[in-house]
Protein backbone atom coordinates (compact mmCIF):
# COMPACT_ATOMS: atom_id res chain seq x y z
CA UNK A 1 0.00 0.00 0.00
CA UNK A 2 2.74 2.42 1.01
CA UNK A 3 4.66 1.60 -2.14
CA UNK A 4 1.59 2.30 -4.24
CA UNK A 5 1.08 5.70 -2.61
CA UNK A 6 4.73 6.73 -3.00
CA UNK A 7 4.67 5.63 -6.61
CA UNK A 8 1.58 7.69 -7.32
CA UNK A 9 3.03 10.68 -5.47
CA UNK A 10 6.21 10.51 -7.55
CA UNK A 11 4.12 10.33 -10.71
CA UNK A 12 2.55 13.65 -9.73
CA UNK A 13 5.85 15.53 -10.05
CA UNK A 14 6.19 15.40 -13.87
CA UNK A 15 2.51 16.27 -14.30
CA UNK A 16 2.76 19.36 -12.10
CA UNK A 17 6.06 20.30 -13.76
CA UNK A 18 4.52 20.12 -17.24
CA UNK A 19 1.48 22.12 -16.13
CA UNK A 20 3.69 24.80 -14.57
CA UNK A 21 5.63 25.08 -17.85
CA UNK A 22 2.39 25.49 -19.78
CA UNK A 23 1.15 28.12 -17.33
CA UNK A 24 4.45 29.96 -17.54
CA UNK A 25 4.45 29.69 -21.32
CA UNK A 26 1.14 31.54 -21.36
CA UNK A 27 2.90 34.75 -20.35
CA UNK A 28 5.17 34.45 -23.36
CA UNK A 29 2.18 33.96 -25.64
CA UNK A 30 0.24 36.84 -24.17
CA UNK A 31 0.35 40.09 -26.05
CA UNK A 32 1.79 43.17 -24.36
CA UNK A 33 5.18 43.81 -22.80
CA UNK A 34 5.31 42.72 -19.15
CA UNK A 35 8.33 44.97 -18.53
CA UNK A 36 6.27 48.01 -19.48
CA UNK A 37 3.45 46.96 -17.16
CA UNK A 38 5.90 46.45 -14.30
CA UNK A 39 7.56 49.81 -15.01
CA UNK A 40 4.16 51.48 -14.95
CA UNK A 41 3.69 50.17 -11.42
CA UNK A 42 6.68 52.17 -10.19
CA UNK A 43 6.49 55.16 -12.52
CA UNK A 44 3.33 56.79 -13.74
CA UNK A 45 4.54 57.19 -17.33
CA UNK A 46 7.81 55.26 -17.72
CA UNK A 47 10.43 56.38 -20.22
CA UNK A 48 12.17 53.83 -22.40
CA UNK A 49 15.13 53.74 -20.01
CA UNK A 50 12.86 53.02 -17.10
CA UNK A 51 11.21 50.18 -19.03
CA UNK A 52 14.65 48.75 -19.80
CA UNK A 53 15.56 49.15 -16.13
CA UNK A 54 12.45 47.18 -15.11
CA UNK A 55 13.25 44.55 -17.73
CA UNK A 56 16.69 44.09 -16.21
CA UNK A 57 15.49 44.40 -12.63
CA UNK A 58 12.83 41.70 -12.96
CA UNK A 59 15.12 39.46 -15.04
CA UNK A 60 13.01 39.69 -18.18
CA UNK A 61 16.14 40.06 -20.35
CA UNK A 62 17.38 36.63 -19.42
CA UNK A 63 16.89 33.51 -21.58
CA UNK A 64 13.49 31.92 -21.19
CA UNK A 65 14.56 28.78 -19.32
CA UNK A 66 16.29 30.91 -16.69
CA UNK A 67 13.16 33.04 -16.38
CA UNK A 68 11.12 29.87 -15.92
CA UNK A 69 13.46 28.59 -13.17
CA UNK A 70 13.26 31.95 -11.43
CA UNK A 71 9.50 32.03 -11.68
CA UNK A 72 9.04 28.41 -10.58
CA UNK A 73 11.40 28.92 -7.63
CA UNK A 74 9.37 31.89 -6.46
CA UNK A 75 6.08 30.09 -7.13
CA UNK A 76 7.20 27.25 -4.89
CA UNK A 77 7.42 29.78 -2.10
CA UNK A 78 3.97 31.08 -2.92
CA UNK A 79 5.24 34.19 -4.70
CA UNK A 80 3.40 34.58 -8.00
CA UNK A 81 4.12 38.28 -8.35
CA UNK A 82 1.78 41.18 -7.83
CA UNK A 83 -1.65 41.68 -9.27
CA UNK A 84 -1.53 44.33 -12.02
CA UNK A 85 -4.87 45.53 -10.79
CA UNK A 86 -4.74 45.88 -7.01
CA UNK A 87 -0.92 45.63 -6.56
CA UNK A 88 -1.45 43.07 -3.83
CA UNK A 89 0.32 39.73 -4.12
CA UNK A 90 -1.55 37.33 -6.39
CA UNK A 91 -1.74 34.61 -3.76
CA UNK A 92 -3.17 37.01 -1.21
CA UNK A 93 -5.74 38.18 -3.75
CA UNK A 94 -6.94 34.61 -4.27
CA UNK A 95 -6.70 33.81 -0.56
CA UNK A 96 -9.20 36.55 0.24
CA UNK A 97 -11.81 35.27 -2.21
CA UNK A 98 -11.30 31.53 -1.84
CA UNK A 99 -13.42 31.05 1.32
CA UNK A 100 -16.45 32.53 -0.45
CA UNK A 101 -16.15 30.09 -3.35
CA UNK A 102 -15.49 27.13 -1.03
CA UNK A 103 -18.58 28.02 1.00
CA UNK A 104 -20.65 28.17 -2.19
CA UNK A 105 -19.28 24.84 -3.44
CA UNK A 106 -19.84 23.10 -0.11
CA UNK A 107 -23.42 24.39 0.05
CA UNK A 108 -24.13 23.12 -3.43
CA UNK A 109 -22.60 19.71 -2.71
CA UNK A 110 -24.78 19.38 0.39
CA UNK A 111 -27.91 20.38 -1.55
CA UNK A 112 -26.94 17.97 -4.32
CA UNK A 113 -26.68 15.09 -1.84
CA UNK A 114 -29.80 15.98 0.11
CA UNK A 115 -31.97 16.17 -3.02
CA UNK A 116 -30.17 13.90 -5.47
CA UNK A 117 -29.51 10.78 -3.39
CA UNK A 118 -33.07 10.24 -2.04
CA UNK A 119 -34.55 10.86 -5.49
CA UNK A 120 -32.13 8.34 -7.00
CA UNK A 121 -33.04 5.74 -4.37
CA UNK A 122 -36.79 6.34 -4.77
CA UNK A 123 -36.44 6.09 -8.52
CA UNK A 124 -34.67 2.73 -8.24
CA UNK A 125 -37.02 1.31 -5.62
CA UNK A 126 -40.13 2.24 -7.60
CA UNK A 127 -38.60 1.13 -10.87
CA UNK A 128 -40.94 1.85 -13.80
CA UNK A 129 -43.74 3.01 -11.48
CA UNK A 130 -45.20 6.51 -11.87
CA UNK A 131 -42.89 8.00 -9.20
CA UNK A 132 -39.86 6.71 -11.09
CA UNK A 133 -41.26 8.15 -14.33
CA UNK A 134 -41.65 11.59 -12.76
CA UNK A 135 -38.16 11.55 -11.27
CA UNK A 136 -36.75 10.44 -14.62
CA UNK A 137 -38.49 13.27 -16.43
CA UNK A 138 -37.09 15.68 -13.83
CA UNK A 139 -33.55 14.38 -14.29
CA UNK A 140 -33.90 14.52 -18.07
CA UNK A 141 -35.00 18.15 -17.95
CA UNK A 142 -32.24 18.88 -15.48
CA UNK A 143 -29.38 17.74 -17.71
CA UNK A 144 -30.79 19.69 -20.66
CA UNK A 145 -30.86 23.08 -18.95
CA UNK A 146 -28.14 25.69 -18.83
CA UNK A 147 -27.39 26.41 -15.17
CA UNK A 148 -26.81 30.10 -15.90
CA UNK A 149 -30.28 30.38 -17.40
CA UNK A 150 -31.81 28.82 -14.30
CA UNK A 151 -29.73 31.32 -12.31
CA UNK A 152 -31.22 34.18 -14.33
CA UNK A 153 -34.73 32.75 -13.91
CA UNK A 154 -34.21 32.56 -10.15
CA UNK A 155 -32.99 36.12 -10.16
CA UNK A 156 -36.16 37.05 -12.03
CA UNK A 157 -38.56 35.08 -9.85
CA UNK A 158 -37.00 35.77 -6.45
CA UNK A 159 -35.48 39.16 -7.20
CA UNK A 160 -37.96 40.88 -9.46
CA UNK A 161 -41.26 39.15 -8.68
CA UNK A 162 -40.98 38.09 -5.02
CA UNK A 163 -38.30 40.63 -4.02
CA UNK A 164 -36.63 38.15 -1.65
CA UNK A 165 -33.12 38.90 -2.89
CA UNK A 166 -31.52 41.98 -4.37
CA UNK A 167 -30.86 41.60 -8.10
CA UNK A 168 -27.66 43.59 -7.75
CA UNK A 169 -25.73 41.58 -5.22
CA UNK A 170 -25.52 38.99 -2.52
CA UNK A 171 -26.68 41.21 0.32
CA UNK A 172 -29.25 38.76 1.65
CA UNK A 173 -28.79 35.27 3.05
CA UNK A 174 -31.01 33.69 0.41
CA UNK A 175 -28.82 34.59 -2.55
CA UNK A 176 -25.93 32.15 -1.87
CA UNK A 177 -28.42 29.31 -1.34
CA UNK A 178 -30.17 30.07 -4.63
CA UNK A 179 -26.77 30.32 -6.31
CA UNK A 180 -25.84 26.92 -4.90
CA UNK A 181 -29.06 25.38 -6.23
CA UNK A 182 -28.49 26.96 -9.65
CA UNK A 183 -24.96 25.53 -9.68
CA UNK A 184 -26.35 22.04 -9.08
CA UNK A 185 -28.47 22.18 -12.24
CA UNK A 186 -27.16 19.47 -14.52
CA UNK A 187 -25.62 17.54 -11.64
CA UNK A 188 -28.94 16.45 -10.10
CA UNK A 189 -29.80 14.53 -13.25
CA UNK A 190 -26.40 12.86 -13.42
CA UNK A 191 -26.39 11.70 -9.81
CA UNK A 192 -30.01 10.49 -9.91
CA UNK A 193 -29.34 8.42 -13.02
CA UNK A 194 -26.11 7.03 -11.60
CA UNK A 195 -27.71 5.90 -8.36
CA UNK A 196 -30.77 4.56 -10.17
CA UNK A 197 -28.89 2.36 -12.65
CA UNK A 198 -26.44 1.04 -10.07
CA UNK A 199 -29.05 0.42 -7.39
CA UNK A 200 -31.43 -1.33 -9.79
CA UNK A 201 -28.62 -3.64 -10.83
CA UNK A 202 -27.90 -4.50 -7.21
CA UNK A 203 -31.57 -4.87 -6.23
CA UNK A 204 -32.02 -7.57 -8.86
CA UNK A 205 -29.28 -9.67 -7.30
CA UNK A 206 -29.96 -12.84 -5.36
CA UNK A 207 -28.71 -11.71 -1.98
CA UNK A 208 -31.29 -8.96 -1.90
CA UNK A 209 -34.02 -11.54 -2.33
CA UNK A 210 -32.42 -13.54 0.48
CA UNK A 211 -32.36 -10.51 2.73
CA UNK A 212 -36.02 -9.86 1.99
CA UNK A 213 -36.87 -13.50 2.60
CA UNK A 214 -35.11 -13.33 5.94
CA UNK A 215 -37.77 -10.80 6.88
CA UNK A 216 -35.58 -7.70 7.08
CA UNK A 217 -37.43 -4.41 6.80
CA UNK A 218 -37.36 -2.99 3.30
CA UNK A 219 -35.50 0.08 4.54
CA UNK A 220 -32.63 -1.96 5.88
CA UNK A 221 -32.57 -4.11 2.73
CA UNK A 222 -32.33 -1.08 0.48
CA UNK A 223 -29.88 0.97 2.51
CA UNK A 224 -27.72 -1.67 4.18
CA UNK A 225 -27.51 -4.25 1.44
CA UNK A 226 -28.49 -2.36 -1.67
CA UNK A 227 -26.99 1.08 -1.37
CA UNK A 228 -23.76 -0.13 0.20
CA UNK A 229 -23.04 -2.20 -2.87
CA UNK A 230 -24.28 0.32 -5.40
CA UNK A 231 -22.38 3.31 -4.07
CA UNK A 232 -18.88 2.53 -5.35
CA UNK A 233 -19.34 3.50 -9.02
CA UNK A 234 -21.18 6.61 -7.85
CA UNK A 235 -18.26 7.63 -5.67
CA UNK A 236 -15.68 8.17 -8.42
CA UNK A 237 -18.09 10.24 -10.44
CA UNK A 238 -19.11 12.18 -7.35
CA UNK A 239 -15.54 13.27 -6.62
CA UNK A 240 -15.13 14.69 -10.12
CA UNK A 241 -18.46 16.46 -9.68
CA UNK A 242 -17.19 18.09 -6.48
CA UNK A 243 -14.08 19.28 -8.33
CA UNK A 244 -16.07 20.79 -11.17
CA UNK A 245 -18.49 22.44 -8.75
CA UNK A 246 -15.54 24.14 -7.06
CA UNK A 247 -13.81 25.11 -10.31
CA UNK A 248 -16.83 25.96 -12.43
CA UNK A 249 -18.50 28.43 -10.13
CA UNK A 250 -17.55 31.47 -12.22
CA UNK A 251 -20.78 31.64 -14.24
CA UNK A 252 -23.07 31.52 -11.22
CA UNK A 253 -20.79 33.86 -9.25
CA UNK A 254 -21.07 36.45 -12.00
CA UNK A 255 -24.87 36.17 -12.14
CA UNK A 256 -25.42 36.52 -8.40
CA UNK A 257 -22.54 39.03 -8.03
CA UNK A 258 -20.72 36.80 -5.54
CA UNK A 259 -17.12 37.94 -5.12
CA UNK A 260 -15.40 34.55 -5.26
CA UNK A 261 -12.34 33.26 -7.11
CA UNK A 262 -14.33 32.44 -10.23
CA UNK A 263 -15.37 36.04 -10.58
CA UNK A 264 -11.79 37.12 -9.86
CA UNK A 265 -10.52 34.85 -12.64
CA UNK A 266 -13.03 36.30 -15.10
CA UNK A 267 -12.03 39.84 -14.21
CA UNK A 268 -8.34 39.02 -14.58
CA UNK A 269 -9.01 37.66 -18.07
CA UNK A 270 -10.70 40.92 -19.01
CA UNK A 271 -7.91 43.14 -17.71
CA UNK A 272 -5.09 40.71 -18.54
CA UNK A 273 -3.98 40.36 -14.96
CA UNK A 274 -1.55 37.53 -15.68
CA UNK A 275 0.00 36.92 -12.21
CA UNK A 276 -3.44 36.31 -10.70
CA UNK A 277 -4.48 34.15 -13.65
CA UNK A 278 -1.30 32.05 -13.48
CA UNK A 279 -1.66 31.61 -9.75
CA UNK A 280 -5.32 30.58 -10.10
CA UNK A 281 -4.72 28.07 -12.88
CA UNK A 282 -1.72 26.48 -11.20
CA UNK A 283 -3.47 26.18 -7.85
CA UNK A 284 -6.52 24.58 -9.47
CA UNK A 285 -4.33 22.13 -11.40
CA UNK A 286 -2.46 21.05 -8.29
CA UNK A 287 -5.75 20.76 -6.43
CA UNK A 288 -7.35 18.60 -9.14
CA UNK A 289 -4.36 16.29 -9.44
CA UNK A 290 -3.99 15.83 -5.69
CA UNK A 291 -7.74 15.32 -5.30
CA UNK A 292 -7.70 12.58 -7.96
CA UNK A 293 -4.84 10.83 -6.22
CA UNK A 294 -6.65 11.06 -2.91
CA UNK A 295 -9.82 9.57 -4.40
CA UNK A 296 -7.86 6.74 -6.04
CA UNK A 297 -6.23 5.86 -2.75
CA UNK A 298 -9.52 6.09 -0.88
CA UNK A 299 -11.12 3.92 -3.53
CA UNK A 300 -8.51 1.20 -3.16
CA UNK A 301 -9.09 1.22 0.59
CA UNK A 302 -12.85 0.82 0.24
CA UNK A 303 -12.83 -1.66 -2.60
CA UNK A 304 -10.34 -4.42 -1.91
CA UNK A 305 -11.00 -5.89 -5.35
CA UNK A 306 -8.87 -3.22 -6.98
CA UNK A 307 -5.48 -4.64 -7.80
CA UNK A 308 -2.70 -2.55 -6.40
CA UNK A 309 0.13 -2.40 -8.87
Amino acid sequence: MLRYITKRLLALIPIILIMSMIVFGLTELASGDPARILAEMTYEHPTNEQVEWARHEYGLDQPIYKQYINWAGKALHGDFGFSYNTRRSALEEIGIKLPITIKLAVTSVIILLVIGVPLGILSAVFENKWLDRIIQIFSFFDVSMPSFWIGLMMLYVFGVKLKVISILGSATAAAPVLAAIAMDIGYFGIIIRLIRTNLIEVLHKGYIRTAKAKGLSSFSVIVKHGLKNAILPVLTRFSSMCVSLLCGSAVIESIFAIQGVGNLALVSVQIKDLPVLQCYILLITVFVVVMNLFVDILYSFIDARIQIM
Partner: protein
Amino acid sequence: MNHKVRKLEKKGVMHFRWAEYLGDTKTRIGFGIVVIFVILAIFAPMIAPNDPLYVDVINKLQPPSRQFWFGTDNMGRCLFSRIVWGSRYSLLYSFIIMVITILIGVPIGLVSGYIGGKIDNFIMRIIDLFMAMPSFVLALAIAGTLGPSGKNLVFAMSCVYWASYARLSRALTIQVKEQSFILALKAGGCSHTKILFGHILKNIMDSIVALATMEIGGIILSIAGFSFIGLGVQPPTPEWGIMLSDSKNYIQTCPRLMLIPGIVVVIVVMAFNLLGDGLKNGRYER
Protein backbone atom coordinates in the same frame (compact mmCIF):
# COMPACT_ATOMS: atom_id res chain seq x y z
CA MET B 1 -11.49 -15.33 -48.63
CA ASN B 2 -12.43 -11.70 -48.29
CA HIS B 3 -16.08 -12.61 -48.56
CA LYS B 4 -15.84 -15.13 -45.73
CA VAL B 5 -14.15 -12.65 -43.43
CA ARG B 6 -16.91 -10.16 -44.08
CA LYS B 7 -19.50 -12.76 -43.13
CA LEU B 8 -17.67 -13.42 -39.85
CA GLU B 9 -17.43 -9.72 -39.22
CA LYS B 10 -21.16 -9.26 -39.67
CA LYS B 11 -21.85 -11.96 -37.12
CA GLY B 12 -19.74 -10.41 -34.42
CA VAL B 13 -20.69 -6.80 -34.72
CA MET B 14 -23.49 -4.36 -35.02
CA HIS B 15 -24.33 -2.27 -38.01
CA PHE B 16 -25.76 1.15 -38.03
CA ARG B 17 -29.38 1.17 -39.05
CA TRP B 18 -31.23 4.43 -38.61
CA ALA B 19 -34.66 2.92 -39.17
CA GLU B 20 -34.26 0.67 -36.15
CA TYR B 21 -33.10 3.45 -33.91
CA LEU B 22 -35.90 5.75 -34.91
CA GLY B 23 -38.57 3.26 -33.89
CA ASP B 24 -39.04 4.93 -30.51
CA THR B 25 -41.37 7.96 -30.39
CA LYS B 26 -39.10 9.97 -28.09
CA THR B 27 -36.14 9.41 -30.36
CA ARG B 28 -38.25 10.42 -33.34
CA ILE B 29 -39.32 13.67 -31.64
CA GLY B 30 -35.70 14.47 -30.80
CA PHE B 31 -34.63 13.71 -34.35
CA GLY B 32 -37.42 15.89 -35.77
CA ILE B 33 -36.46 18.90 -33.64
CA VAL B 34 -32.78 18.48 -34.50
CA VAL B 35 -33.65 18.42 -38.20
CA ILE B 36 -35.74 21.60 -37.83
CA PHE B 37 -32.86 23.43 -36.16
CA VAL B 38 -30.35 22.17 -38.72
CA ILE B 39 -32.62 23.58 -41.45
CA LEU B 40 -32.91 26.87 -39.52
CA ALA B 41 -29.13 27.02 -39.23
CA ILE B 42 -28.43 26.26 -42.88
CA PHE B 43 -31.09 28.55 -44.33
CA ALA B 44 -30.79 31.28 -41.69
CA PRO B 45 -30.31 34.13 -44.21
CA MET B 46 -33.53 33.14 -45.97
CA ILE B 47 -35.63 32.32 -42.90
CA ALA B 48 -34.73 35.30 -40.72
CA PRO B 49 -37.18 38.11 -41.54
CA ASN B 50 -34.82 40.92 -40.45
CA ASP B 51 -31.10 41.65 -40.26
CA PRO B 52 -29.93 40.27 -36.88
CA LEU B 53 -27.28 42.98 -36.54
CA TYR B 54 -29.35 45.97 -37.63
CA VAL B 55 -29.42 48.40 -34.71
CA ASP B 56 -32.51 50.59 -34.50
CA VAL B 57 -32.54 52.29 -31.10
CA ILE B 58 -35.89 54.01 -31.67
CA ASN B 59 -37.60 50.60 -31.91
CA LYS B 60 -35.90 49.12 -28.86
CA LEU B 61 -37.68 46.68 -26.49
CA GLN B 62 -40.73 46.43 -28.78
CA PRO B 63 -43.28 43.75 -27.87
CA PRO B 64 -43.86 40.94 -30.39
CA SER B 65 -45.51 42.16 -33.56
CA ARG B 66 -46.02 40.97 -37.13
CA GLN B 67 -42.70 42.42 -38.24
CA PHE B 68 -40.76 41.35 -35.15
CA TRP B 69 -42.16 37.94 -34.17
CA PHE B 70 -40.44 37.84 -30.80
CA GLY B 71 -40.16 41.62 -30.42
CA THR B 72 -36.91 43.58 -30.39
CA ASP B 73 -34.02 43.67 -27.93
CA ASN B 74 -32.32 46.52 -26.08
CA MET B 75 -30.74 47.80 -29.31
CA GLY B 76 -33.85 47.40 -31.44
CA ARG B 77 -32.57 44.26 -33.13
CA CYS B 78 -35.09 41.60 -34.19
CA LEU B 79 -35.05 38.86 -31.54
CA PHE B 80 -36.45 36.17 -33.83
CA SER B 81 -33.80 36.79 -36.48
CA ARG B 82 -31.10 36.70 -33.82
CA ILE B 83 -32.38 33.36 -32.54
CA VAL B 84 -32.43 31.91 -36.05
CA TRP B 85 -28.89 33.12 -36.73
CA GLY B 86 -27.88 31.96 -33.26
CA SER B 87 -28.78 28.39 -34.15
CA ARG B 88 -26.26 28.66 -36.97
CA TYR B 89 -23.44 29.66 -34.60
CA SER B 90 -24.32 27.15 -31.89
CA LEU B 91 -24.71 24.19 -34.22
CA LEU B 92 -21.72 25.12 -36.37
CA TYR B 93 -19.36 25.56 -33.44
CA SER B 94 -20.52 22.41 -31.68
CA PHE B 95 -20.26 20.46 -34.94
CA ILE B 96 -16.69 21.72 -35.50
CA ILE B 97 -15.73 20.81 -31.94
CA MET B 98 -17.25 17.37 -32.38
CA VAL B 99 -15.40 16.70 -35.65
CA ILE B 100 -12.06 17.90 -34.23
CA THR B 101 -12.40 15.85 -31.04
CA ILE B 102 -13.36 12.72 -32.98
CA LEU B 103 -10.48 13.20 -35.43
CA ILE B 104 -8.00 13.55 -32.54
CA GLY B 105 -9.50 11.20 -29.98
CA VAL B 106 -10.54 8.18 -32.04
CA PRO B 107 -7.18 7.49 -33.77
CA ILE B 108 -5.32 7.90 -30.47
CA GLY B 109 -7.70 5.51 -28.72
CA LEU B 110 -7.57 3.00 -31.62
CA VAL B 111 -3.79 2.88 -31.75
CA SER B 112 -3.43 2.88 -27.98
CA GLY B 113 -5.87 0.01 -27.51
CA TYR B 114 -4.48 -1.99 -30.43
CA ILE B 115 -0.82 -1.73 -29.42
CA GLY B 116 -1.35 -2.16 -25.68
CA GLY B 117 1.50 -2.47 -23.20
CA LYS B 118 3.60 0.41 -21.96
CA ILE B 119 2.62 2.90 -24.66
CA ASP B 120 -1.03 2.20 -23.92
CA ASN B 121 -0.42 2.80 -20.21
CA PHE B 122 1.32 6.08 -20.91
CA ILE B 123 -1.45 7.30 -23.22
CA MET B 124 -4.07 6.31 -20.65
CA ARG B 125 -2.35 8.46 -18.04
CA ILE B 126 -2.49 11.46 -20.37
CA ILE B 127 -6.15 10.76 -21.15
CA ASP B 128 -6.91 10.60 -17.42
CA LEU B 129 -5.17 13.91 -16.86
CA PHE B 130 -7.25 15.60 -19.57
CA MET B 131 -10.46 14.00 -18.32
CA ALA B 132 -9.75 15.38 -14.86
CA MET B 133 -8.99 18.93 -16.01
CA PRO B 134 -12.05 21.15 -15.67
CA SER B 135 -12.80 22.59 -19.12
CA PHE B 136 -13.45 25.96 -17.52
CA VAL B 137 -9.83 26.29 -16.39
CA LEU B 138 -8.46 25.51 -19.83
CA ALA B 139 -10.85 27.87 -21.57
CA LEU B 140 -9.88 30.52 -19.03
CA ALA B 141 -6.17 30.00 -19.68
CA ILE B 142 -6.56 30.19 -23.44
CA ALA B 143 -8.97 33.11 -23.41
CA GLY B 144 -6.73 34.91 -20.92
CA THR B 145 -3.70 34.79 -23.16
CA LEU B 146 -4.87 34.49 -26.75
CA GLY B 147 -7.87 36.70 -26.10
CA PRO B 148 -11.50 35.54 -25.96
CA SER B 149 -13.03 34.60 -29.32
CA GLY B 150 -15.12 31.87 -30.89
CA LYS B 151 -12.06 30.31 -32.53
CA ASN B 152 -10.12 30.12 -29.25
CA LEU B 153 -13.16 28.64 -27.52
CA VAL B 154 -13.30 25.86 -30.14
CA PHE B 155 -9.59 25.28 -29.54
CA ALA B 156 -9.97 25.16 -25.76
CA MET B 157 -12.99 22.85 -25.81
CA SER B 158 -11.38 20.49 -28.33
CA CYS B 159 -8.40 20.22 -25.95
CA VAL B 160 -10.73 18.89 -23.26
CA TYR B 161 -13.29 16.78 -25.09
CA TRP B 162 -11.00 14.58 -27.24
CA ALA B 163 -10.11 12.54 -24.17
CA SER B 164 -13.54 10.94 -23.77
CA TYR B 165 -13.52 9.72 -27.39
CA ALA B 166 -9.99 8.38 -26.93
CA ARG B 167 -11.05 6.50 -23.83
CA LEU B 168 -14.19 5.02 -25.41
CA SER B 169 -12.50 3.95 -28.65
CA ARG B 170 -9.60 2.44 -26.71
CA ALA B 171 -11.95 0.35 -24.57
CA LEU B 172 -13.93 -0.79 -27.62
CA THR B 173 -10.78 -1.59 -29.61
CA ILE B 174 -9.56 -3.84 -26.83
CA GLN B 175 -12.90 -5.69 -26.97
CA VAL B 176 -13.05 -5.97 -30.75
CA LYS B 177 -9.45 -6.99 -31.30
CA GLU B 178 -10.05 -10.25 -29.42
CA GLN B 179 -12.82 -11.33 -31.80
CA SER B 180 -12.32 -14.12 -34.26
CA PHE B 181 -12.67 -12.12 -37.47
CA ILE B 182 -9.62 -10.05 -36.52
CA LEU B 183 -7.64 -13.26 -36.19
CA ALA B 184 -8.94 -14.33 -39.58
CA LEU B 185 -7.86 -11.01 -41.08
CA LYS B 186 -4.41 -11.37 -39.56
CA ALA B 187 -4.13 -14.91 -40.88
CA GLY B 188 -5.15 -13.64 -44.27
CA GLY B 189 -2.17 -11.26 -44.26
CA CYS B 190 -4.06 -8.03 -43.78
CA SER B 191 -1.81 -5.14 -42.66
CA HIS B 192 -2.19 -3.62 -39.20
CA THR B 193 -3.19 -0.24 -40.60
CA LYS B 194 -5.89 -1.84 -42.70
CA ILE B 195 -7.23 -3.89 -39.77
CA LEU B 196 -7.22 -0.89 -37.50
CA PHE B 197 -8.70 1.79 -39.70
CA GLY B 198 -10.66 -0.43 -42.07
CA HIS B 199 -12.20 -3.08 -39.87
CA ILE B 200 -11.96 -2.15 -36.19
CA LEU B 201 -12.98 1.44 -36.85
CA LYS B 202 -16.01 0.29 -38.82
CA ASN B 203 -17.09 -1.89 -35.92
CA ILE B 204 -16.84 0.72 -33.20
CA MET B 205 -18.21 3.59 -35.27
CA ASP B 206 -21.81 3.36 -34.09
CA SER B 207 -20.78 3.62 -30.43
CA ILE B 208 -18.79 6.71 -31.29
CA VAL B 209 -21.73 8.23 -33.16
CA ALA B 210 -23.93 7.55 -30.11
CA LEU B 211 -21.41 9.19 -27.78
CA ALA B 212 -21.11 12.19 -30.10
CA THR B 213 -24.89 12.67 -30.13
CA MET B 214 -24.98 12.37 -26.34
CA GLU B 215 -22.22 14.93 -25.96
CA ILE B 216 -23.41 17.51 -28.44
CA GLY B 217 -26.10 18.77 -26.06
CA GLY B 218 -23.48 19.34 -23.39
CA ILE B 219 -21.21 21.08 -25.91
CA ILE B 220 -24.03 23.46 -26.91
CA LEU B 221 -24.60 24.26 -23.23
CA SER B 222 -20.88 24.88 -22.70
CA ILE B 223 -20.58 27.16 -25.71
CA ALA B 224 -23.53 29.21 -24.51
CA GLY B 225 -22.09 29.28 -20.98
CA PHE B 226 -18.64 30.43 -22.05
CA SER B 227 -20.09 33.08 -24.32
CA PHE B 228 -22.34 34.18 -21.46
CA ILE B 229 -19.35 34.98 -19.23
CA GLY B 230 -17.42 36.58 -22.08
CA LEU B 231 -14.86 33.83 -22.70
CA GLY B 232 -16.32 32.66 -26.00
CA VAL B 233 -17.99 34.19 -29.02
CA GLN B 234 -17.96 37.97 -28.74
CA PRO B 235 -20.85 40.41 -29.18
CA PRO B 236 -22.56 41.59 -31.30
CA THR B 237 -22.61 38.09 -32.84
CA PRO B 238 -26.14 36.71 -32.48
CA GLU B 239 -25.23 33.79 -30.21
CA TRP B 240 -27.64 32.41 -27.60
CA GLY B 241 -25.23 32.80 -24.67
CA ILE B 242 -24.49 36.41 -25.62
CA MET B 243 -28.18 37.16 -26.00
CA LEU B 244 -28.78 35.84 -22.48
CA SER B 245 -25.88 37.84 -21.10
CA ASP B 246 -27.20 41.01 -22.79
CA SER B 247 -30.63 40.35 -21.32
CA LYS B 248 -29.33 40.39 -17.75
CA ASN B 249 -29.57 44.17 -17.48
CA TYR B 250 -33.18 44.14 -18.67
CA ILE B 251 -34.36 41.48 -16.24
CA GLN B 252 -36.73 43.92 -14.57
CA THR B 253 -38.07 45.76 -17.59
CA CYS B 254 -38.09 43.09 -20.27
CA PRO B 255 -37.86 39.45 -19.04
CA ARG B 256 -38.86 38.27 -22.53
CA LEU B 257 -35.27 38.86 -23.69
CA MET B 258 -34.10 36.28 -21.18
CA LEU B 259 -36.98 33.79 -21.46
CA ILE B 260 -37.01 33.18 -25.21
CA PRO B 261 -33.32 32.41 -25.86
CA GLY B 262 -33.24 30.25 -22.72
CA ILE B 263 -36.22 28.18 -23.81
CA VAL B 264 -34.73 27.74 -27.28
CA VAL B 265 -31.45 26.46 -25.79
CA VAL B 266 -33.37 24.02 -23.58
CA ILE B 267 -35.39 22.72 -26.56
CA VAL B 268 -32.32 22.13 -28.72
CA VAL B 269 -30.29 20.47 -25.98
CA MET B 270 -33.24 18.32 -25.02
CA ALA B 271 -33.72 17.21 -28.62
CA PHE B 272 -30.08 16.15 -28.88
CA ASN B 273 -30.31 14.34 -25.54
CA LEU B 274 -33.47 12.49 -26.64
CA LEU B 275 -31.77 11.45 -29.86
CA GLY B 276 -28.62 10.43 -28.00
CA ASP B 277 -30.55 8.39 -25.42
CA GLY B 278 -32.43 6.67 -28.24
CA LEU B 279 -29.24 5.75 -30.07
CA LYS B 280 -27.65 4.46 -26.87
CA ASN B 281 -30.68 2.39 -25.82
CA GLY B 282 -31.09 1.03 -29.34
CA ARG B 283 -27.53 -0.20 -29.21
CA TYR B 284 -27.93 -1.98 -25.89
CA GLU B 285 -31.27 -3.58 -26.65
CA ARG B 286 -29.98 -5.63 -29.54
